[in-house]
């Protein structure tokens, strides 16, 4: 189970850090690298504090049975949200996340401010970088805390996975110095959605006293089941209305910034 936690945290963090990196890049190019890096580091520090305090407090103060129920419930909500979005994107009901378009839109927006690029700390650059890393990182923080709370000694493993993803994205980003378009974001989101839903089902089930057959091995079977059903759903949605995709895509523009979907 420990490796599954590392992989889930690594994949989820990769997706989120790639999205955050795009805006850190915008801040670095349009304002200056000093402001961009300071903002990003401040956000990472904030996230570390959140994980350290909230994570440890949850694990030590709340009984494991209650914790597993709450974390399982939240993981199910979170996992189904990711899975639903990934399935919608695969089936053409929703646009694929386009880092290049987001990068271009934000670059134009930042350049429209019309201020010269200097070397001193610029509040706009710091805030843009801080906000993007913090917002994207919050989801990673939640996943790390969830795994730490739900499984034995999982918080360290999840943190290792997330940190490895962060280092990898920064290294690749520093080499390429452009939006990381080739990262298969939707595939990663799809896999993470399945993993979160699987862990959510497993832990919330355990909180109700369910003894899963084959113990931890059942996680793999559950993941396989969710994968098969998801693939079937994608196929069915593609076949049901091929026209839906084009109609929806024509009426929806890709999100220009980090705006999250508000849907009730």
């Amino acid at each position, binding site marked *: 189970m420990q490796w599954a936690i590392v992989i889930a945290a690594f994949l989820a963090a990769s997706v989120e850090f790639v999205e955050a990196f795009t805006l850190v890049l915008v801040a670095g190019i349009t304002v200056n690298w000093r402001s961009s890096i300071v903002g990003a580091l401040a956000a990472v520090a904030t996230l570390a504090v959140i994980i350290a305090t909230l994570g440890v407090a949850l694990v030590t103060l709340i009984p494991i049975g209650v914790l597993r129920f709450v974390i399982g419930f939240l993981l199910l909500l979170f996992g189904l949200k990711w899975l639903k979005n990934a399935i919608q994107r695969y089936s053409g009901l929703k646009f694929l996340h386009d880092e290049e378009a987001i990068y271009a839109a934000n670059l134009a927006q930042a350049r429209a401010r019309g201020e010269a690029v200097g070397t001193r700390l610029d509040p706009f650059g710091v805030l843009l970088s801080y906000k993007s890393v913090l917002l994207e990182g919050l989801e990673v923080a939640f996943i790390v805390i969830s795994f730490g709370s739900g499984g034995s000694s999982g918080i360290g493993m999840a943190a290792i996975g997330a940190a490895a993803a962060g280092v990898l994205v920064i290294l690749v980003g520093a080499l390429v110095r452009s939006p990381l378009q080739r990262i298969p974001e939707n595939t990663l989101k799809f896999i993470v959605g399945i993993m979160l839903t699987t862990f959510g089902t497993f832990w919330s089930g355990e909180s109700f006293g369910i003894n899963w057959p084959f113990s931890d091995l059942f996680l793999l079977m559950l993941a396989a089941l969710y994968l098969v059903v998801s693939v079937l759903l994608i196929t069915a949605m593609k076949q049901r209305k091929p026209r839906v995709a084009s109609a929806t895509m024509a*009426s929806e523009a890709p999100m220009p910034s980090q705006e999250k979907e508000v849907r009730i």
Partner: protein
Amino acid sequence: MNVILKVILAVYNFFVGDLVILIGVTLTMVILALINSVGALAPLRGGSGLILIVGVLATLVATLGREVMRSENKQKA
């Protein structure tokens, strides 16, 4: 908008952002809690795992079905 309402909406959007998912998962949990606590429903306890998995899958199908319907309605309009 009220600040408290904004905070609630932000938390809702962070965790789920979809009412069908929220209702589906909550309903599944309530059913499991009832099976676990009501004596008359004790014979169903052996099938709790299956009920949970079916509940999760039904929620996924329902929310995606809603999106397909929404797209079709948008296309008609």
